[in-house]
């Protein structure tokens, strides 16, 4: 920096210099796009920056639709809401939410099979050895084992029951987590009210141009259709698949995962409830993809995720409709996508949150989770106005790992199958998979060991659930499990089953619990 420039430090024409004093703090954040990602970003930023005199603006156009369909979430969303200080019962009412104990996977390992991936581990450690080794030992010794019976959330889900967990993790009722199934559009509206009450400026308008600063290529401003120019220090791109800023303006590039995740379209439709909502999401494997079923208080969300190489849009739509029980409440709509992630989720002064940052099919309900990760990591690495490389590099390193690890976990669902009833499943069974996954599967097959890692949504219990649920039982158990004499094994397993059965018997019906805690006001 020349002396001349330093002397004009306060002049707005001069770019943010390298020094790190308070007058280089971010003054204005512009969020481009509403939808779930835009409003989750807005709410989180408004909350944590509440006392700073920071200008937070969100630009959205009602003319541009959002992808938002019914959303199933992961337990992480509860921490997000808690951080915002949101009352859970109020949120349940406002978003027509139901509770979620896990996801049922039907017909995945093979047609006719069903398992639930619960928010909680099977059984408990004995002799510092995870419970599934004892299950493996029993199965390989020829004992008949029903995996469901060793998980409280699975048994509760099957029985249509729900009750908030006990705070003590040593209590049997404290051994699980839960999430929500809610209307993502209503959630976004709720967060909009939340953000506007905290001083956020919302601008209705369509962006027609982006201006980059010549000196460093940072985004300087966006121009609206009516000619207004909106400047900002940091831009959060929540514009959806097209990535208006991150790709349109900054040409960041996209890392495709389609070699591993062949589904690239979804056809969605809402339907009326025909029975009380179940406390879990269902994902049913079909001839060329899978169909979701997300029960909310007022309706059920449905969608068929498929690979267009194997089925046409019309066929997929017909298949979706054939598998919906209640009357439709809207016309089916086709969404196109491409699994993958932006090469740099944070490029220059632009952070891509939501679909603009990357997309992974909603098989494990990771949509909102990845938005939450994107925005909370950005807050943890909140930069100065010059968006230093150290902040960006660390953010991108973390987000890349988060995406890749979810990706590998999703691929497992497709490759751990015996299905051979369609070209799609033949393709999945035989496709090449990343080394990071084949190594994990090989180790599990040999002796049931799960590879742990520092970052990534799905840990030990999730891998166990999907492996066993899709028919991969290890050839051997950990030798450490043999501390227990063989004769004691059936008794020990029986004791776990009994305590779970008793706890589930005492739980509330899901519907009754919603009515008591967070029913939406009808009529």
């Amino acid at each position, binding site marked *: 920096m020349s002396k001349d420039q330093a002397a004009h430090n306060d002049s707005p024409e001069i770019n943010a210099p390298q020094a790190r004093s308070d007058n280089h703090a971010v003054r204005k954040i512009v969020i481009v796009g509403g939808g779930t990602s835009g409003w989750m970003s807005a709410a989180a930023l408004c909350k944590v920056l509440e006392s700073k005199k920071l200008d937070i603006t969100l630009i959205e156009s009602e003319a541009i639709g959002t992808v938002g369909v019914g959303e199933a979430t992961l337990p992480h969303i509860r921490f997000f809401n808690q951080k915002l200080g949101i009352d859970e019962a109020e949120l349940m009412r406002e978003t027509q939410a139901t509770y979620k104990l896990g996801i049922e996977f039907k017909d995945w390992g093979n047609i006719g099979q069903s398992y639930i991936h619960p928010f909680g581990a099977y059984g408990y450690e004995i002799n510092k050895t995870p419970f599934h080794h004892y299950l493996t030992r029993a199965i390989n010794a020829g004992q008949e084992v029903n995996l469901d019976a060793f998980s409280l959330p699975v048994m509760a889900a099957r029985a249509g029951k729900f009750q908030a967990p006990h705070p003590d993790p040593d209590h049997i009722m404290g051994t699980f987590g839960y999430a929500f199934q809610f209307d993502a559009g209503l959630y976004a509206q709720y967060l909009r009210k939340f953000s506007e009450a905290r001083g956020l400026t919302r601008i209705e308008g369509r962006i027609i141009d982006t201006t980059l600063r010549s000196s460093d290529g940072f985004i300087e401003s966006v121009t609206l259709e009516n000619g207004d120019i909106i400047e900002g220090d940091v831009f959060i791109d929540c514009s959806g698949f097209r990535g208006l800023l991150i790709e349109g303006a900054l040409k960041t590039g996209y890392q495709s995962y389609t070699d591993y995740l062949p589904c690239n379209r979804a056809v969605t439709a809402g339907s009326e409830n025909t029975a009380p909502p179940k406390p879990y999401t269902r994902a049913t494997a079909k001839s060329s993809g899978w169909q979701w079923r997300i029960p909310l208080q007022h309706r059920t969300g449905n969608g068929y995720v498929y690979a267009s190489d194997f089925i046409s849009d019309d066929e997929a739509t017909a298949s979706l409709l054939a598998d919906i029980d209640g009357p439709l409440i809207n016309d089916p709509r086709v969404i196109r996508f491409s699994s993958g992630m932006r090469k740099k989720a944070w490029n220059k002064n632009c952070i891509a949150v939501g679909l603009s940052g990357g997309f992974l099919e909603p098989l494990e309900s990771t949509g909102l989770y990845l938005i939450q990760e994107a925005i909370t990591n950005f807050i943890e690495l909140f930069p100065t106005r010059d968006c230093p490389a150290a902040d960006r*590099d660390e953010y991108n390193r973390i987000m890349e790992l988060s995406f890749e690890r979810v990706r590998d976990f999703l691929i497992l669902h497709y490759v751990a199958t015996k299905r051979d009833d369609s070209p799609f499943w033949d393709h999945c069974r035989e496709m090449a998979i990343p080394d990071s996954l084949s190594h994990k599967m090989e*180790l599990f097959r040999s002796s049931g060991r799960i590879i742990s890692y520092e970052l990534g949504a799905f840990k030990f219990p999730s891998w166990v659930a999907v492996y066993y649920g899709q028919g991969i039982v290890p050839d051997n158990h950990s030798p450490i499990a*043999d501390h227990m004499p063989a004769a004691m094994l059936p008794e020990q397993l029986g004791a776990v089953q009994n305590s779970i059965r008793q706890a589930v018997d005492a739980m509330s019906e899901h519907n009754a619990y919603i009515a008591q805690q967070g029913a939406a006001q009808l009529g």
Partner: protein
Amino acid sequence: MSAREHIIILGGDFAAPFAAAYLSRMLPAARYQISYIDTGLGDLSGIYSAGHADLAMVNKLLQMSEPDFIRRCHATLKLGEHVQGWGARNYMRPFANYGASLDGIGFLSLAMRAGKTGNLADWTKYCLPSLMAQQGKFAPPAAKSVPIASDYSYSYNLDPRLYAKLLTMRAQHYGAALIQAQSVDAKTDKSGVSVTLPSGETLSGDFLINASGAPLQGQSWTAWAELPGQSVSVKRAAATPTLSPATHHTLGEAYSLTAPLQSGDLSLSIHADSAGETPFTQGHIDTFWAGRVLNIGQAAARFLPLDSLPFAMLHGDLERFVELLPPRFDSAVEGHEYNRRTGERYDRLYDFLAVMCSSCAAPGPFGDAARAISVPKTAQYKIDLFKARGRIAVYDEETMLRDSWLPAMLGQGVWPERHDPMSEEIEQSRIKVHLTKLAEVIEQICAQMPSHEAFIARHCASPEFAARHMKAAP
């Protein structure tokens, strides 16, 4: 299940009796038979005089009485690592965090906003075990969930030769066979292991744990040639009236690890040249687990014993071995995973040593060699991110957690240029009150504690120490 599998532990290093006790406790006797061939302990066993944070847990697992263990090993209590000559000033790396957070904002950012930057030594008053160590005090942490008073842990300085005897007895108690021999000849192939004793007797087994202190013949080794230190000398001093409740890592002409013991300090000096009697070649074996051989302790890796990492690595390696114990020893996939993770562990360890060496402040040949080290990309990334904004990048296989890296960076003079902007949500005046209160509470708790020597005399003194302490007491 057919016949038991036979695991032979080849001794020579402290790692051997440790493995013998740990494995005979952890592995089901119905499936494994363990033999420990005790060939004595090499000169480098002094490296294990500095206990790591989890040592109390190990002893508990091995069902040892704590006072009995301390007494018999001439051990002392240890609140952390005292580091001298590495950074600009001396500092403590305790088994605890410095300071306390406020509204979810970490102490580092609070301290930076209060202008308390520049040297970690100035933070002693914000960290109970650091203040205890400075004042030569010791008391175990309070029962669970008392803020500050229960927020630290402790370990031990000990005499490895005495601890080895105790561990050997525990191993035998759990069913291990002890074989004493001067030297042995070990051979392995695809189908098994055979060890020939000086008597000519041959022991055959299914798996060999090489804890002899050196790789077996034909195993390749990657040298960490840039790390300073070529030779080692060991010194045992006469008993002293005061005992520091810490391990001392002092850098002058040489780097010395000093473990204060009830029977007198045990010091191990690592020289930049060949001045010490025992050569010290740093590096690691290329294949930690090769077929039917697992290398642990000094046979797996040799490096500067900063932060009591030799003990932490030995314990970690054994835990990982048990976690990945294969169904049969001819299964290869578990060994591959062990090698992948262990390799990463030692890479992260090297990151830490590189940070310590490259930032070392001491003049002299050791310091010069240390500063000349090239810093790996992964370590440089950590330094750069911390320098920029006080955040520790955490990789998958870290032995040192985020909270241990923080005082290492600060103590070595790596200070962030920016504080966490979220900390600005808290008013300056509240931060000031928070810091003042914290220091007051810590001072009060510390004032009520007995001296380290008095604590030992009351609870766990060796007969010699007890006698001396009685004489010294007024």
